[in-house]
C-alpha cells in the first residue's frame, strides 16, 4: 500500500489537468481481471461503479461468453444457442478495457501478467476468475482427444454443440451414458439437471431410449428432489447408479464409447458424456495460488489468495468453504472482491463480506427445484448462516415446481443483466 501511495502522489503531480475523479485516492491504480465469466465480469463492472478512478482491464479470450447455466436447456432444445451467449459491449461502455487474449503466466513479484500475444500487463491487484480446467490425468483413457468423441460439455462452447449434435444423431432406442465425478466440481446439481433435460428431449423425440448415470459418489445436491422428480417424470427411462452400486467409472474407451467401473463392469453407450474431475483454471496454477487439491485457498473476508499477495481468486477456481461452485456464488463473490479492492485502494474500511446463493435446476419444462444458502465469515472461516441452507420441499404441489421453473428463467435474465447487460 505504501508503495502505491507514493506512486499515486507522483502521478497526481504529473497530471494536474486530469479531472478531479482521476486524482482521487487510488487514481491510476491498475486492476487486471482474468476471466470474463460470472465472477470476473462482475468484478470488472462493480469496480468501475465503486472505484471509477481505478483502471480495470478484463482479459477474456472469447468475444462472446456462453454460460454453463442454461446450457442444459440448449442441449434439450429448450433454448437457442444465441440466448446463452453474452458480449462485452456493456462492460466496455462502463470503462472496462476488454482484452480478448489468453492469460499465460503471472509474475507475482513483478506484479505482471503475460498474455499469449507476448504482451505484459502490470497490475496493482490481480483478480483470477478462470473457472475450471479438466484434469486430463485423472480418469484413464479420458484426455483431450477422447473428449472429441465423448464430450464433457462442462465448459459451454464447442463441447456443448458437439453433445447436442450427438444427441440429435442418436437412434431411438439408444443409450445415453453420463459419467459423474466426485466432489468438488463445477455446478454440483448440474449433471442431474442435464440428465433430466436430456431425458425430456429423448422422451419427446426418441422415446425408446434410456439414460444411465454412473456416479462416483453416493450423495449429490438436491438428491431426494431429483429422485422424486425423475420417478414422476421419466419412470424407468433413467437409472442413477451410486458409488455403492458400482457407479464409479475408472476407465474410458472413447472410441468404443465404453466405460469400465471400479468393479469391472462394462457399459456401452450410444452417446457418452464424461464429466471428469476438475481443478482451478490453468492460470491459477501458473500464478501459484493453488494448493495440492488443485483449487485456490482464499480468505473469506475478501477472497484474497492465501498464498500470493495482491491476488484475489473467486468463482469455481476458489476453495471457498461451503459456498457452492455456482454462477450465482461467483457473481456474489465478484461484488465482495470489487468492494474489497475499492476500499483497499482508497484506504477505506472494507465492507463485511456477505454471500448468498440460489441454484435452480429444471427437471422438465414447468418443473423447477432449488437449493439456497447465505454465507459469512465466522472465526476466520466461511460458514453458512444458521437455517439458511436448504432445498425445495419434497412432495410440493405442481404450482410450486412451476413457480421455481419461472424463477430459474428470471434469475438467468437478472444475473445476465447484472453482469453483461443482457
Amino acid at each position, binding site marked *: 500500500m505504501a508503495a502505491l501511495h507514493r506512486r499515486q502522489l507522483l502521478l497526481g503531480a504529473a497530471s494536474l489537468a486530469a479531472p478531479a475523479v482521476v486524482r482521487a485516492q487510488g487514481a491510476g491504480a491498475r486492476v487486471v481481471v482474468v476471466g470474463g465469466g460470472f465472477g470476473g465480469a462482475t468484478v470488472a463492472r462493480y469496480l468501475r461503479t465503486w472505484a471509477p478512478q481505478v483502471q480495470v482491464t478484463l482479459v477474456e479470450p472469447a468475444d462472446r461468453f456462453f454460460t454453463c447455466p442454461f446450457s442444459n436447456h440448449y442441449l434439450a432444445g429448450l433454448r437457442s444457442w444465441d440466448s446463452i451467449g453474452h458480449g462485452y459491449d456493456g462492460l466496455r461502455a462502463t470503462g472496462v478495457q476488454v482484452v480478448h487474449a489468453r492469460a499465460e503466466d503471472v509474475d507475482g513479484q513483478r506484479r505482471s501478467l503475460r498474455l499469449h500475444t507476448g504482451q505484459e500487463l502490470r497490475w496493482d491487484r490481480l483478480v483470477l476468475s478462470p473457472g475450471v480446467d479438466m484434469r486430463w490425468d485423472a480418469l484413464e483413457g479420458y484426455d483431450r482427444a477422447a473428449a472429441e468423441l465423448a464430450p464433457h460439455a462442462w465448459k459451454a462452447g464447442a463441447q456443448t454443440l458437439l453433445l447436442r449434435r450427438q444427441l440429435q444423431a442418436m437412434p431411438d432406442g439408444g443409450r445415453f451414458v453420463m459419467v459423474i465425478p466426485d466432489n468438488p466440481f463445477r455446478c454440483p446439481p448440474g449433471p442431474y439437471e442435464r440428465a433430466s433435460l436430456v431425458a425430456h428431449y429423448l422422451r419427446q423425440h426418441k422415446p425408446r431410449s434410456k439414460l444411465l448415470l454412473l456416479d462416483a459418489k453416493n450423495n449429490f445436491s438436491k438428491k431426494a428432489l431429483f429422485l422424486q422428480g425423475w420417478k414422476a417424470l421419466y419412470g424407468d427411462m433413467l437409472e442413477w447408479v451410486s458409488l455403492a452400486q458400482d457407479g464409479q467409472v475408472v476407465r474410458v474407451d472413447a472410441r468404443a464409447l465404453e466405460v469400465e467401473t471400479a468393479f469391472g463392469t462394462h457399459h456401452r453407450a450410444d452417446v457418452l458424456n464424461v464429466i471428469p474431475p476438475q481443478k482451478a483454471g490453468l492460470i491459477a496454477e501458473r500464478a501459484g495460488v493453488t494448493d495440492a487439491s488443485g483449487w485456490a485457498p482464499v480468505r473469506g473476508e475478501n477472497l484474497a489468495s492465501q498464498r500470493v499477495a495482491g491476488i484475489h481468486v473467486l468463482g469455481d477456481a476458489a476453495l471457498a468453504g461451503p459456498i457452492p461452485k455456482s454462477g450465482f456464488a461467483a457473481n456474489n463473490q465478484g461484488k465482495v472482491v470489487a468492494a474489497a479492492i475499492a476500499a483497499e485502494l482508497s484506504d*477505506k474500511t472494507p465492507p463485511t463480506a*456477505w454471500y448468498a446463493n*440460489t441454484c435452480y435446476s429444471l427437471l422438465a419444462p414447468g418443473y423447477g427445484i432449488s437449493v*439456497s444458502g447465505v454465507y459469512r465469515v465466522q472465526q476466520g472461516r466461511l460458514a453458512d448462516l444458521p437455517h439458511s441452507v436448504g432445498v425445495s420441499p419434497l412432495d410440493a404441489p405442481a404450482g410450486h415446481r412451476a413457480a421455481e421453473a419461472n*424463477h430459474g*428463467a*428470471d434469475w438467468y435474465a*437478472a444475473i445476465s443483466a447484472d453482469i453483461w447487460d*443482457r
Partner: protein
Amino acid sequence: MRQALTAIKKCAPWAALVLLLPCAAQPLPSLPVQDVALLAGNCVTCHGPGGRPPAEASGSIPALRGRSSALLLERMQAFKAGRVAGATVMPLLMQGYDTAQMQALARWFAAPPTETP
C-alpha cells in the same frame, strides 16, 4: 407463529411480552453504507440491477425498487417468519439476515444512497 415470536424476541426481547410490536418500530444502529451496497448485491442477482427485473424476465421475481421501505421490511420479516403462503426460496434466504440488515436493505431499495463503497 413460534418462528415469528423467535424473530421478534431476537430484535427486542421484551416486545414479545408486550404487544408483539413489529421490529420496524425499533430503531437499530444503521449499517455502514458500503456494507448495505454489498448486501444489496445479494438481492439484485435475482431481482435485477438496481432491484429492477430486466425486460426479458417474466415477472415471476418482483421488483424491489419503487416500493416503500415499510412494505419491503414487512415482506422480508414475513418471509423470515414463514408467514408467506406459496413462498419458494425467500424463507430460507432471509434466515441469513438480521433485523438491522433487513431495515437497511428496505431503505436501500426504497431510495438507494448515491455514495458507494
